[in-house]
């Protein structure tokens, strides 16, 4: 285990340069802001609330803080969330202006009244972060539209919300949706007088959109590839081209990109992958991948008789949607929770997996749990086949799922109650308990007094109180990384390749063009 730590670090540094310099800088800046804001917040001086606003700076700040705030808001009270936000933000804003990075240590001295606050706040802040993965945390989801840059196009705004609620989910779907939204954003763009479109569009118009999307949910590798392609396309435009022509050209190119790299590619991959499904096959798949779904449905249309096992996981229950669509198509489907994996793998003759991204060392980054599925299948000698468009191939490398991952809000793990998430869950037993009990969240869990016969509802705490328990954390990673040796074949539009060929395809597809 110890020996794994080091390479993991290396891989992190190794993939760092691949992110464009601008992105890096921006990220670093946002991080810094967030850190500073967090420090400020811990020292929490509600005394000074003079709402000083200064435009240019605030734009960036609020984003970072909004993010931070989100985390806080959820931490402090799971329900009422955003109420205290504006005032606090004002306060932070002010201090941000006054104090440079060296400032923070002085602050507690200055406001003695507030000095009791930090001790109380500190554990709560920690409470949301699992140290092991703390590097993944600064990127937090935006809860609402407060503090969004005014430059963000409404289509992109809507998309951001859809992405953060998983309404649009899946690497390629997000990529396509993003490109379509960018099309609208680009059409709405007018070049300011003293500059040209190729110079101005990317840095001043697209960047806020991208930043906004990133704040909704970290960008998928496919989105990164598409953005890189789009930036290159725009920068290389002829500056003398009339604006509307240039915009039309870019939009056409985007359409072509979507068509070539995703729509047609999907068809090609599905056509190729469906050959793997033969009569009496038992196809096992995990969660939901659009391309796997397409493959299965096509094979079914062709009259192949086979059975599908859908393994699903909490908290997204994507597999259920896949199973529903297969059911509607008249396929024989079996639906198994992740815990039942061991029982169904031995029935399978083929495992089809979708990808979030294929990494350059041949590893597969996909929905968390995929690695276990692949491992089990590998041990049972069931071939594991990954269907993945080349746009999802990545130059990054990773050895484990810790360095490179995305942490979803832990609240998603809570079962049922809080209304926003209800459709996904079978009615949780804990529902009634929340309203009754969470009113008095004791600092330490001191149970044992009234837990009576009627089990769940009478309990002192439900998972919704997790924030009030000092040492409890909820961890909800999005992806894991499947070792290349479990993968028999990767089907992409360049053909069926072994995982070791991923970097080659990546260079060909994403860097060569």
């Amino acid at each position, binding site marked *: 285990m110890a020996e794994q730590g080091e390479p993991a670090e290396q891989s992190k540094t190794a993939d760092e340069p691949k992110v464009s310099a601008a992105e890096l800088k921006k990220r670093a800046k946002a991080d810094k802001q967030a850190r500073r804001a967090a420090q400020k917040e811990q020292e929490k001086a509600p005394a000074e609330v003079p709402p000083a606003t200064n435009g240019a700076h605030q734009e960036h700040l609020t984003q970072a803080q909004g993010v931070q705030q989100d985390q806080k808001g959820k931490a402090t009270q799971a329900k009422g969330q955003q109420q205290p936000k504006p005032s606090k933000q004002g306060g932070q804003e002010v201090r941000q202006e006054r104090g440079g990075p060296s400032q923070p240590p002085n602050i507690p001295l200055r406001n003695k009244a507030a000095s009791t606050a930090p001790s109380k706040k500190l554990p709560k802040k920690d409470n949301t972060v699992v140290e092991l993965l703390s590097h993944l945390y600064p990127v937090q989801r935006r809860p609402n539209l407060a503090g969004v840059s005014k430059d963000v196009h409404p289509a992109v705004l809507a998309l951001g919300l859809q992405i953060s609620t998983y309404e649009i989910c899946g690497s390629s779907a997000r990529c396509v949706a993003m490109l379509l939204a960018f099309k609208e954003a680009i059409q709405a763009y007018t070049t300011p007088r003293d500059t040209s479109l190729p110079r101005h569009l990317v840095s001043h118009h697209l960047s806020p959109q991208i930043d906004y999307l990133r704040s909704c949910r970290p960008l998928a590798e496919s989105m990164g590839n598409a953005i890189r392609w789009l930036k290159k396309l725009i920068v290389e435009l002829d500056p003398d081209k009339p604006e509307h022509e240039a915009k039309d050209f870019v939009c056409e190119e985007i359409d072509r990109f979507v068509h070539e790299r995703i729509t047609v590619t999907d068809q090609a991959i599905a056509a190729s992958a469906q050959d793997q499904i033969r009569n009496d096959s038992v196809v096992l798949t995990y969660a939901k991948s659009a391309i796997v779904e397409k493959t299965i449905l096509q094979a079914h249309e062709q009259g192949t008789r086979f059975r599908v096992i859908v393994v699903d996981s909490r908290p997204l229950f994507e597999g259920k949607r896949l199973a529903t669509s297969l059911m509607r198509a008249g396929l024989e489907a079996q639906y*198994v929770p992740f815990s039942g994996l061991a029982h169904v793998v031995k029935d399978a003759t083929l495992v089809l997996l979708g990808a979030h991204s294929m990494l350059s060392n041949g590893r597969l980054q996909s929905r968390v749990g995929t690695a276990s599925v692949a491992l089990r299948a590998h041990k049972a000698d069931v071939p594991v086949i990954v269907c993945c468009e080349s746009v999802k191939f990545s130059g990054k490398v990773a050895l484990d799922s810790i360095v490179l991952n995305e942490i979803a809000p832990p609240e998603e793990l809570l079962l049922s109650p809080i209304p926003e998430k209800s459709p996904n869950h079978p009615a949780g037993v804990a529902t009634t308990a929340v309203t009754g009990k969470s009113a008095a969240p004791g600092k330490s869990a001191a149970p044992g007094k009234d837990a009576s016969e009627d089990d769940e509802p009478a309990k002192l705490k439900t998972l919704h109180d997790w924030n009030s328990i000092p040492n409890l954390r909820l961890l909800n990673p999005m992806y894991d990384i499947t070792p290349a040796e479990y993968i028999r074949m990767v089907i992409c539009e360049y053909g069926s390749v072994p995982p070791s060929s991923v970097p080659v395809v990546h260079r060909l597809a994403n860097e060569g063009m």
Partner: protein
Amino acid sequence: MPSSVIGQTPSLTTFLKSLRQNDIENSIELFISLLKRRQIKNSRPCAIATTHLLLRVVAEPKRKWDAQKLIARVRHVGRRLIAAQPREMAVGNIVRRVLGVIREVAERDEDPLTDSEFSGSASPITGEFQRPALPTRFSEFSPLHGAAAMPHNMHSGRPGTADSTSMDFGSAPQRPALLSTNASYAGQGPPGTSLFSILQHPQGRSPMATPPPGTQSPVTGPSPSRKGTGGEIPEKLDIKAEVIDGIKELQDELDVVDNQIAESALDHIHSNEIILTHTSSQTVQKFLLTAARKRKFTLFHAEAYPNNHEATHATILNGAQGEDDSNERWKPLTSLGITVILIPDTAVFALMSRINKVILAPHAVLANGSLLAAAGASTIALAAKTHHVPVVVLSGVYKLSPVYPFDTDELIEYGDPSKVVPFEEAEFTDKVDIVNPLYDWVDCDLVDLYITNLGGQAPSYLYRIVADHYRVEDIDLNAKQEAMAKKG
């Protein structure tokens, strides 16, 4: 269903309460129905309920057992219980343990008895020098007992009286301390009792033979073991009383098993360790709590969705709960300063590379070192194996079953599919085959260590513990009675 249970959800607690009031047949039926309805489930509640029920069966008033009858009775009850819920292996384990207790008691009784039978028959005719050959008959049954019984028969054999035999009957022959008393009493016994009475003695019907043991039992009885208060027919009472004692010991074992396992916690958990566990097992919680008092570690807790996640969450948030006594809750680990990180089961592989130890709680452990555990356990164990993370299984001996797993599939129980997809989604539940296995089969290859109440053991050693705890005759409870009758 008996009236006492109405009004509450039937559970282990209500069952134990009702045991006092119901007659035995009703209790058996009630337990069977509770098992069938899964209102008593999981190993520990089943084991506890079984011990209590068998205690009642053995202690049945107005019944006088001899060993064979008692064995037959317990076997019969045991078969019915096992048939009610064959996958709750703890039931079968306890039945076998109780049978083992009965056999042991019976052997203790029989050894001297039958020896003296022979001594009685042999000594007048051929003398004692032929007798050393005799114990061989018992040595196949239990070599130890036969051997132990032999010298003391050498002593008492010559007088060869009814008294000596009856007295031996009550005593534990393998205890050397008794030898002198035996001998002395043997000497005092009225001489000249007929061979007939000696041979009759095992049935204890001889009016000639019974009075002397009755008078002697206060002397001999208390010394070997706690016995009946010298009833009229001591050997019958003795069996009953000793078996009851044996079952009570079993109950005590069930009470302390977790503590015994937890005692070794500090031998296995070091500071700053990152541990992964699964489900809401009490045993694991107690183990970790014990470790947490001395050491700080980090615990990743997989939630075992969809069958055990609520209990797991409750355990993490409020502390583990005793099944038998729902008012009692332990402190949660978090209150001892242990960082507990709740993760979905899917995240196990992702995190495994950072985990130092996986601790699992089995549903049942089988003779070859494999185990049945909550669904998802085998995926965790497999992930651990591929990351070379040790897998430690905490299991009381009562979970250790003599069953050898020839067909692992039949051991798996399938649960309520509505826990996966609620029945409200009619179309889905109708057309899609929803599978919700409750248990996972974890192969012995994936386990590195068992920690039982007897200490740490390698999986490959478990068969020895099985051999220590179960009699060969009892392993197949459905075997024909004759087969055993031959032996017993």
